[in-house]
C-alpha cells in the first residue's frame, strides 16, 4: 500500500513539474489528458463502479457548460460563482434522469439508451429555445484575468485541470475504499443479491448518478471557460459521451486509475498518429490513415487486454 502511495506522490510531483519543462504545445496536451481523465472519472463512478453504463453522459457536461455560460453572458455573473451553480444543475439533471429511469427499473442497455435519448432531447432543446441563442451558440468574451476564470498563461489552466483530476481521483478513492463503493460494486455484480443484502439499490444508484452528473457538469464549465464558445452540438454531441466511455473502458472501468491511464494512452495514440501525417511526407495526403491506425490500436488494446490497461498492473483477474 505504501508503495502505491509513493508511486502516486511521484506521479503527482511529475505532473506538477511537467509543464515547467515542456513546450506549450505539450502543456496543452497534458491539460487535455487530465481534463479527459476527469470527465472519464465522472463516467466511471456511475458506469464503472455502479455498472450503470451511460451513452449520454454528455448531457451533464452540456448542462454544466450552458448553465455557467448563460449565467455569465446573459446575467453577468462571475464564472467562478457560476461554477457551483453549474454543478448543482448537472447534479439535478443527474438526479432527475436517475429517478425517472431507475424508478422504471431500467438496467444495462436500456439505461444506456435512455441517457442517449436524454442527451438528444437536450441538444434539440438547446437548438430551439431562445435563451441558449439556439444554433448561433454562445461566445464568452475573452478577458484573460484569473478572477474571470481565464488565464493568459496556459500553465494555469493545466494546473486547474490537474487539480480537477486529483480531486476526481480522491473522490474515486474515497468511494472505492468506503461502504458506498462496496454497495455500488455489489449492485454492479448482482442487483438482486445486493437488494437481498439490504442495500437500498434505488437510493444508491440515484446518489451515484447525481454525484457523477455534478462532476461532469463541472467539466462542462471548465471546457466553456477554456474554449470560450459553445453550441448545441459541442455541448450535447455524442462525441463527448463516447470519449468519456472510451477512455474509461480502455483504461479499466471500475478502477481508480482507469480513466486517467485510458486518457493518457488514447491521447498519446491520437497525437502520435496525427503527428505521423505531418512528419512522414508520403503520408501528407492520407490524413484519414492516422484515424485508421487509431481505430486499429483501439481494437488491439481490447483484444490483448480485456480488463483494460489497468489489467497490466493487476496480478489477479477481476471477477466479472
Amino acid at each position, binding site marked *: 500500500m505504501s508503495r502505491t502511495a509513493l508511486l502516486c506522490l511521484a506521479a503527482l510531483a511529475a505532473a506538477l513539474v511537467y509543464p515547467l519543462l515542456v513546450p506549450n504545445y505539450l502543456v496543452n496536451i497534458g491539460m487535455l489528458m487530465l481534463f479527459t481523465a476527469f470527465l472519464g472519472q465522472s463516467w466511471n463512478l456511475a458506469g464503472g463502479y455502479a455498472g450503470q*453504463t451511460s451513452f449520454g453522459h454528455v448531457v451533464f457536461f452540456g448542462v454544466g457548460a450552458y448553465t455557467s455560460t448563460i449565467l455569465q453572458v446573459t446575467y453577468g455573473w462571475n464564472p467562478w460563482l457560476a461554477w457551483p451553480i453549474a454543478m448543482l444543475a448537472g447534479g439535478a439533471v443527474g438526479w432527475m434522469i436517475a429517478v425517472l429511469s431507475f424508478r422504471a427499473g431500467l438496467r444495462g442497455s436500456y439505461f444506456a439508451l435512455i441517457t442517449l*435519448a436524454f442527451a438528444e432531447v437536450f441538444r434539440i432543446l438547446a437548438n430551439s429555445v431562445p435563451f441558449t441563442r439556439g444554433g448561433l451558440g454562445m461566445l464568452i468574451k475573452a478577458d484573460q484575468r484569473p478572477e474571470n476564470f481565464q488565464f493568459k498563461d496556459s500553465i494555469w489552466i493545466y494546473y486547474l485541470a490537474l487539480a480537477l483530476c486529483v480531486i476526481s481521483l480522491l473522490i474515486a478513492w474515497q468511494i472505492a475504499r468506503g461502504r458506498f463503493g462496496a454497495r455500488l460494486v455489489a449492485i454492479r455484480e448482482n442487483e438482486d443479491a445486493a437488494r437481498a443484502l439490504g442495500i437500498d439499490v434505488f437510493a444508491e444508484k440515484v446518489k451515484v448518478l447525481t454525484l457523477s452528473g455534478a462532476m461532469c457538469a463541472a467539466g462542462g464549465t471548465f471546457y466553456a471557460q477554456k474554449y470560450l464558445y459553445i453550441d448545441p452540438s459541442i455541448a450535447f454531441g455524442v462525441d463527448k459521451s*463516447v470519449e468519456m466511455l472510451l477512455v474509461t473502458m480502455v483504461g479499466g472501468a471500475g478502477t481508480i486509475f482507469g480513466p486517467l491511464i485510458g486518457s493518457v494512452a488514447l491521447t498519446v495514440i491520437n497525437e502520435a498518429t496525427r503527428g505521423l501525417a505531418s512528419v512522414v511526407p508520403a503520408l501528407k495526403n492520407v490524413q484519414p490513415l492516422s484515424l485508421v491506425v487509431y481505430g486499429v490500436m483501439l481494437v488491439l488494446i481490447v483484444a490483448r487486454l480485456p480488463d483494460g490497461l489497468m489489467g497490466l498492473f493487476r496480478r489477479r483477474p477481476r471477477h466479472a
Partner: protein
Amino acid sequence: MFDPQIIFAGVLNGLLAGGVYVLVAVGLTLIYGVLHIINFAHGSLLMLAMYAVFWLWRLLGVDPYVALPLVIAGAFGFGWLLYRGVIGRFSHGRDENILLITLGLSIVIDNVALLFFGGDTQTIDVPYAGLFVEIGAAFLPLPKIVSFAASLLLCAVLGLYMTRSDTGKAIRAVAKERQGARLVGIDVDNIFAISYGIGIACLGAAACLLMPSYYVTPTSGHAFVLVAFTIVVLGGMGSFIGAAVGGFIIGITEALGGLFLGEQLGQIGISLIFILILLLKPTGLFGSRA
C-alpha cells in the same frame, strides 16, 4: 397547416420513410436480440453497403434494385467474416469489449472509406427517380414506394426464415437461452456469426433501397442509427414485428412532428417517444423481457 389533406400526405410520407428505417432497425434488433450487444458499427456498415451500391452502379452500371441480391449476399458474408475474424475473436465473450470493438471498427471503416472513396457526396441518378404517384396532396416518389414495399417483403421473408428454417430456429434458441442451446449441441459461436451476418445483410438491403433517393459520404450511415435504436426500443429489443411496427410509428411521428413543431424541434418527438416507452413499458410494444 392543419388541413387534413396535408396531414394525410404527411402520414403517407412518414410511412414511406419508415420503410427504410425498418430494415436498418431489423438488423440492429436481430444483433441485439441474439448477441445482446449494441452494434456501434451499424452506421458505418450501412455506409459501406451504400458505397457498394454506388460503385456497382458507377462502374458496372448495375441498377440498385438489380444489385439487391448481390449486395445482400455480400453484406452477409462481410458481416459473418467480421464477427468470426474480429468481433467474436477479440471480445473474449464480454459485452463491454464487443461495444469497444464495434466502436473501434466504426472509426476504422469510416476512415478507410474516406481514404479510398474520398469525402465528396455521391449520388445515383436513376431514370425513375422523378416518377411519382399522386394521392390527394401527397406526391409519393416511386423509389420510396418501392423501398416501402420491399422492406415489408424482406421483413416477412426474414420472419418466415426465423420460424421455419433450422438455422432460424437455432438462432431463436440461442437468443432465448444461450447455455441451453449450447447444451443441446448448437454451435453458438457460429449462430452468433450468422446472426451478425443477417443483421448486416439487412443493411445491404436498406442500402439498395436508399440509394435512389439518398446520397452517400463516409459519414452518411450514422444518420440512421439513432432512429434505428429508437425503433428497436419502441418495438421491443429482439422483436421483428416490433421493429416493423416501430419503424412505421417513428416514420409517422417524425413526419407529423415536423409538420406541427417544425423540422428541428419535431425531431424531439422521436427522442421523447423513446424515453416514454423506456419509462412506461421498457419491454417495448412487442418485446418479451426487460
